[in-house]
């Protein structure tokens, strides 16, 4: 898709005015007459047998309307759905255990919900939580991934007889043969820990049951309102059309606001129906650290076999993946790690297996990047170590291994998270690497700047890493485009939106085809009454899948406009020009109709139409790609490390990225910048720290450190565009890109700054304290 009036233009966002003036509706802004408020009692213990819950005192407190425990739910108590079944990989083992609405016999992670209090205000509901007495027999908690798999370990789910949640082996070629032929094999153990999504808006639900209309309305901070609607209808015994789920403005998603069927999501509508009053629950920040899913640790034992010239002969990787107490999201995260490790490189032989492990910690599901970081970290670090041992420059070893631009589609011969083969559709990796190296001034830094600073007693380092992100996966999304008699164009699509600019980018796509001003296009997302087919916003797929659906629907409407205008203007369809909010005959601007007038005429109230005519200027279209496409990029960074205090300062950060055809450059750049900030958080600030007993030691913003404006530099950016052949627009996803290679980059740059000290970095996140320990250890080893 070529740049046009709107396509490829940095159109300022249409949704901003509401957000800037405080008029945008977020879930917590929903106020309904007679509304009650819920609060949840959550387990202090990470693992234990639940003996009893005595809520009698809470029920008697003035202002308390109801208290529910698992016992009170009756038949409604059932484990949640398995959201993502395992892909069809031979020999795959998967033990499914999905979360429960309220713990019944056993508590499996700290913060697991035990009871729900409903009261006249949230203040009273929280008072009542303190009245509830829980009797729980503690069990040893499982937190260490290796210890969890040893015989005799305490079991998170007794029915499996093991804490193994899954085992998956994928391979291509003959790694053993490659290893035997290698000039060098570098092997390391890597730890990559990740944190919370930490959207500034916590989750929230408001549920209202209209008994006379028999309609349930649920406002939900979900990224996927349609699956939630359908699931809730099934659980509550309602027809799908009786349930309306609205995901209004959402204050950031980053993965965990997906269709989880969280306990609160399932319980609020149920209780609102029973009580006959609207009910609100807004997650507070402390709850968010337990009740919202997270990402966490993987431990990789990996090795890279290379030829003397640095060419990759093969990679072998065996890793453990922490899935938390339940695994409703299947294997998406570890399979992403497994696939993304291959990066933009030719890896002829690959042998990868992982074991997912149940632990007594909150549930792990995708968070921006979704396991891709882990894979990139392992591969990029292995290349760094191989380069050092072979005496090859770090950039050069990458250059020698990149998939060449003429090799697409490139088949990696393993299966991706969308159950389709991991085949890259398009890309130009050498160009991206070249551009990034040039922008950061790699050669000059290595040759003169770094030595000059070193002579002045300063330690600066540089890093350059590459990555691929599988984006824009199926199955499908849809959109309906309607031209109204007012001339306004309405677009409805099912995906939720959490700040990505969909109200603008989708409007651009439609405005481009219908020849109207972009601010005449009003986009509605995330309201199942407006559109009820689709899945949701995740896996960097909004612009790709829903974007192409909007585009397709706009094309259909354009055809209708042309057909109708041609008939009314007595012209050939080929002669009709659609622009400036009108359709006219080419060369005869006075022979025209405004789109609004056409819309009116397309909906006659008297007379007859040609049989088969569809009323209105409206069309619905769907788009489902054959498989995910491959966005890519190169990040480069210069840091300075103070070896005495272990403080790290980012001096420059460069990103060259390729997300195919760009709809709105400013929106894309902002997505990348935001992703980099998230990645910097992951690399140096954010870590969920559990002790051996499964106690989270930093469940607040005091101790869980989000980077601030002083910690994130302005990224210098360049776009490369290799259009994806897998969709008509040629777009690829970009939502997660910025966050993916940052850990690997940080490790490389910091290690470079500390070169000569013997510090080797094989773990993320780092922190000043951890760096101090590594520096101290290296000194000890040298002494």
């Amino acid at each position: 898709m070529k740049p046009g009036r709107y396509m490829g233009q940095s159109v300022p966002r249409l949704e901003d005015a509401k957000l800037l003036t405080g008029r945008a509706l977020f879930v917590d802004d929903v106020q309904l007459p007679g509304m009650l408020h819920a609060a949840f009692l959550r387990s202090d213990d990470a693992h234990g047998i639940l003996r009893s819950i005595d809520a009698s005192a809470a029920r008697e407190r003035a202002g308390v309307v109801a208290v529910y425990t698992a016992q009170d739910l009756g038949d409604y108590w059932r484990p949640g759905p398995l959201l993502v079944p395992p892909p069809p990989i031979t020999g795959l083992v998967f033990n499914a255990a999905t979360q429960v609405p309220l713990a019944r016999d056993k508590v499996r992670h700290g913060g697991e919900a035990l009871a729900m209090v409903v009261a006249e205000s949230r203040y009273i509901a929280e008072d009542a939580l303190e009245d509830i007495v829980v009797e729980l027999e503690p069990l040893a908690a499982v937190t260490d991934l290796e210890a969890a798999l040893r015989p005799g370990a305490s079991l998170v789910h007794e029915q499996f007889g093991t804490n193994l949640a899954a085992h998956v082996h994928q391979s291509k070629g003959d790694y053993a043969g490659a290893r035997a032929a290698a000039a060098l094999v570098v092997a390391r153990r890597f730890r990559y820990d990740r944190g919370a999504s930490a959207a500034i808006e916590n989750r929230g639900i408001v549920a209202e049951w209209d008994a006379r209309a028999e309609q349930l309305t649920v406002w939900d901070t979900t990224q996927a309102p349609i699956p939630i609607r359908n699931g809730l209808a099934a659980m509550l015994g309602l027809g799908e059309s009786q349930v309306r789920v609205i995901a209004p403005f959402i204050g950031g998603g980053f993965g965990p606001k997906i269709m989880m069927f969280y306990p609160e999501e399932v319980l609020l509508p149920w209780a609102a129906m029973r009580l006959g009053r609207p009910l609100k629950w807004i997650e507070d920040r402390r709850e968010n650290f337990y009740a919202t899913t997270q990402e966490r640790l993987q431990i990789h034992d990996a090795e890279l076999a290379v030829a003397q010239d640095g060419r990759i002969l093969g990679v072998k990787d065996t890793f453990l993946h922490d899935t938390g107490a339940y695994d409703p999201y299947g294997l998406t995260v570890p399979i992403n790690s497994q696939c993304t490790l291959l990066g933009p490189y030719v890896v002829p032989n690959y042998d990868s297996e992982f074991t997912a492990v149940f632990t007594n910690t909150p549930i792990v599901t995708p968070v921006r990047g979704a396991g891709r970081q882990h894979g990139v970290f392992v591969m990029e670090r292995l290349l760094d170590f191989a380069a050092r041992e072979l005496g090859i420059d770090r950039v050069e070893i990458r250059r020698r291994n990149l998939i060449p631009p003429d090799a697409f589609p490139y088949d990696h011969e393993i299966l991706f998270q969308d159950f389709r083969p991991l085949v890259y559709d398009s890309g130009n990796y050498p160009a991206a690497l070249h551009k990034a190296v040039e922008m950061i001034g790699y050669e000059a830094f290595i040759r003169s700047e770094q030595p000059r600073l070193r002579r002045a007693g300063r330690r600066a380092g540089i890093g350059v890493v590459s990555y691929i992100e599988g984006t824009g996966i199926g199955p499908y999304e849809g959109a309906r485009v309607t031209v109204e008699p007012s001339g306004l164009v309405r677009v409805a699509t099912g995906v939720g939106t959490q700040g990505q600019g969909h109200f603008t980018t989708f409007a651009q796509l439609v405005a481009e085809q219908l020849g109207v001003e972009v601010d005449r296009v009003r986009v509605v997302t995330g309201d199942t009454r407006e559109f009820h087919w689709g899945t949701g916003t995740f896996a960097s797929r909004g612009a790709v899948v829903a974007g192409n659906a909007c585009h397709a629907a706009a094309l259909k409407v354009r055809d209708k406009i042309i057909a109708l205008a041609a008939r009314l203007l007595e012209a050939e369809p080929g002669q009709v020009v659609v622009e400036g909010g009108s359709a006219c005959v080419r060369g005869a601007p006075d022979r025209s109709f405004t789109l609004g007038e056409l819309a009116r005429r397309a909906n006659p109230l008297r007379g007859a139409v040609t049989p088969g005519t569809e009323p209105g200027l409206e069309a619905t279209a769907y788009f489902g790609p054959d498989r995910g496409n491959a966005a890519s990029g190169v990040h480069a960074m210069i840091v300075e490390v103070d070896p005495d205090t272990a403080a790290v300062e980012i001096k420059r950060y460069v990103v060259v990225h390729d997300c195919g055809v760009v709809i709105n450059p400013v929106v894309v750049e902002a997505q990348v910048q935001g992703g980099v900030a998230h990645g910097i958080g992951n690399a140096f600030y954010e870590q969920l720290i559990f002790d051996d007993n499964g106690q989270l030691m930093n469940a607040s913003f005091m101790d869980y450190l989000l980077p601030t404006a002083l910690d994130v530099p302005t990224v210098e950016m360049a776009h490369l565009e290799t259009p994806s052949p897998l969709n008509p627009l040629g777009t690829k996803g970009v939502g997660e890109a910025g966050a993916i290679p940052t850990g690997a980059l940080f490790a490389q740059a910091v290690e470079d700054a500390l070169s000569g000290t013997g510090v080797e970095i094989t773990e993320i996140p780092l922190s000043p304290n951890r760096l101090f320990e590594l520096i101290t250890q290296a000194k000890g080893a040298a002494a």
Partner: protein
Amino acid sequence: MTDRLTITVTVNGARHERAVESRLLLSDFLRHDLGLTGTHVGCEHGVCGACTVLLDGEAVRSCLVFAVQTDGHAVETVESLATDGVLDPLQTAFHDAHGLQCGFCTPGILMTLVPWLRHHPAPNEVDIREAISGNLCRCTGYANIVKAVELAVSRLADGRTGGPAGARS
């Protein structure tokens, strides 16, 4: 203890008299009792800054002030910035520089900056970053927020106000 006290507080120029429980947080008072939901709540322990409002002209975290404490005082929220749907210069700059994504933290950032810019008419980038270091944003990575402030500062210096978004609401 249902200790209710009657307070009179001026919010965005309008006087409100309300009986409130002493423990009611200012954030909840604004959002629930007065329906001014532009003030957002992100952490309720004074770190994220989303709930920042002006108390007697100074930026404070409304989750760390009790509503009863504002008796006889003046509070301003994000709803006070635009006039008849026309964005103020800072809001306009945020729009023009794409200084927001999900927009949840934005009201707090605006309310932090409004009084600060009065005292710092010509800030540099580090000043701006320090000024908003008590406001967490998870979407933007801050770069465009800084650009937006720089844009607002340069326009104010030029004596220009308003902007393309001002006409729309």
